[in-house]
């Protein structure tokens, strides 16, 4: 079977690498200027054939390159995990400053957490008028929370589901509070 990305796969890979390099450069630059690493880790991927087809079906779209590259915007995806809350916004500002990229969509789930407690900064950039890249930016503790919540989503038949959802929300709110506390402490140290 032909790839859902058609002939575009090498190009997608090229853009993923280009973005990865740009992020490494930003990271290096900040490290030289501030003496601290803002990015804890950065992961990127091309959405697998299988999940892209599954997503098309879920959205009632034909399984074509057009759907995968033009309508769906997360064929290329980045997750950037930062040390502190302010770092998330520093990196966001650097990404939005790319001159050959256009912001298609921004969702700040840090300022407005989802009702289950999920926090992250989501952004879709369009590169040189063609390909789309999705970025998820968050702190280490937001990432930890999301990892645990992910397990819950894929485990069926959970006992006391209501209670667990409520407790996860509490954890998210406590972690968010701690994130801010640590940010304040860092500010005070750097003052």
């Amino acid at each position: 079977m032909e790839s859902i990305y058609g002939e575009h796969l090498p190009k997608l890979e090229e853009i993923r690498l280009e973005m990865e390099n740009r992020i490494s450069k930003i990271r290096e630059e900040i490290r030289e200027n501030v003496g601290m690493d803002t990015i804890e880790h950065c992961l990127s991927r091309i959405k697998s054939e299988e999940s892209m087809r599954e997503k098309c079906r879920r959205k009632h779209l034909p399984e074509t390159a057009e759907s995968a590259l033009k309508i769906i915007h997360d064929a290329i995806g980045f997750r950037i995990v930062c040390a502190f809350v302010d770092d998330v916004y520093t990196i966001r500002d650097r990404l939005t400053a790319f001159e050959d990229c256009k912001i298609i969509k921004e969702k700040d789930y840090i300022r407005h957490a989802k009702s289950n407690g999920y926090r992250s900064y989501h952004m879709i950039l369009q590169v040189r008028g063609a390909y789309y890249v999705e970025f998820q930016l968050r702190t280490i503790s937001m990432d930890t929370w999301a990892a645990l919540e992910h397990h819950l989503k894929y485990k069926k038949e959970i006992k006391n589901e209501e209670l667990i959802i409520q407790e996860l929300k509490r954890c998210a709110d406590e972690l968010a509070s701690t994130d801010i506390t640590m940010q304040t402490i860092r500010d005070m140290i750097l003052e």
Partner: protein
Amino acid sequence: MKLLFAEDTHDLSRAVCAVLAHEGYEVDTAFDGEEAADLIHKNGYDAIVLDIMMPKKNGIEVLKELRESNIVTPVLLLTAKSEIDDRVTGLDAGADDYLTKPFAMKELLARLRAMTRRRTQYQGGDLTYKDLMLKETNFELSSENSVRLSIKEFELLRTLLMNAERALSSSYLLEQIWNEEPEASEDTLWLYISYLNRKLSAVASSVKILGSRGESYQLVSEE
């Protein structure tokens, strides 16, 4: 609502308890101070009435003991008319109110109502101010978003909220919140004010705390 009525005169106790039960209170009785103390440690009460003059242990001793073990149940003391010193000692030892004997039954009932009303309002109440809500039960601070506060942050914000728009001095706040911790300083307070300000803005509230290190602080809304 559950009460403890501690009074060594059996006739008085019987008469009062009959009226209290009629008013819908669930009443336990004690006839001396030791019995009262035992019951208080064993059971939870919504309010306690203690006669000062009781055998084995007087009312003030019982009161001091229960406050020392951090029991905050409202206490009404029954005192003899002439004993001003008893009343002062009793209030200082942590009583919420007193009534002199002989008393009118309807005054006792009114004082019990007032005392338990204060308690429920104080304990169960969520504090709200402008677009902000602070939950007493779980320390949740919320506006458009929500976070959980630590105990000290909660106590500090609660004090500021209960005195919203009024300037409170650093020394007053330190005394209120860090009373047991002499090592806490103006810097400690300033750090906690900074935490709270960042958390207020993280929940996207219009409320913030004005003031600078070592001076007075004032909670206001920019709405």
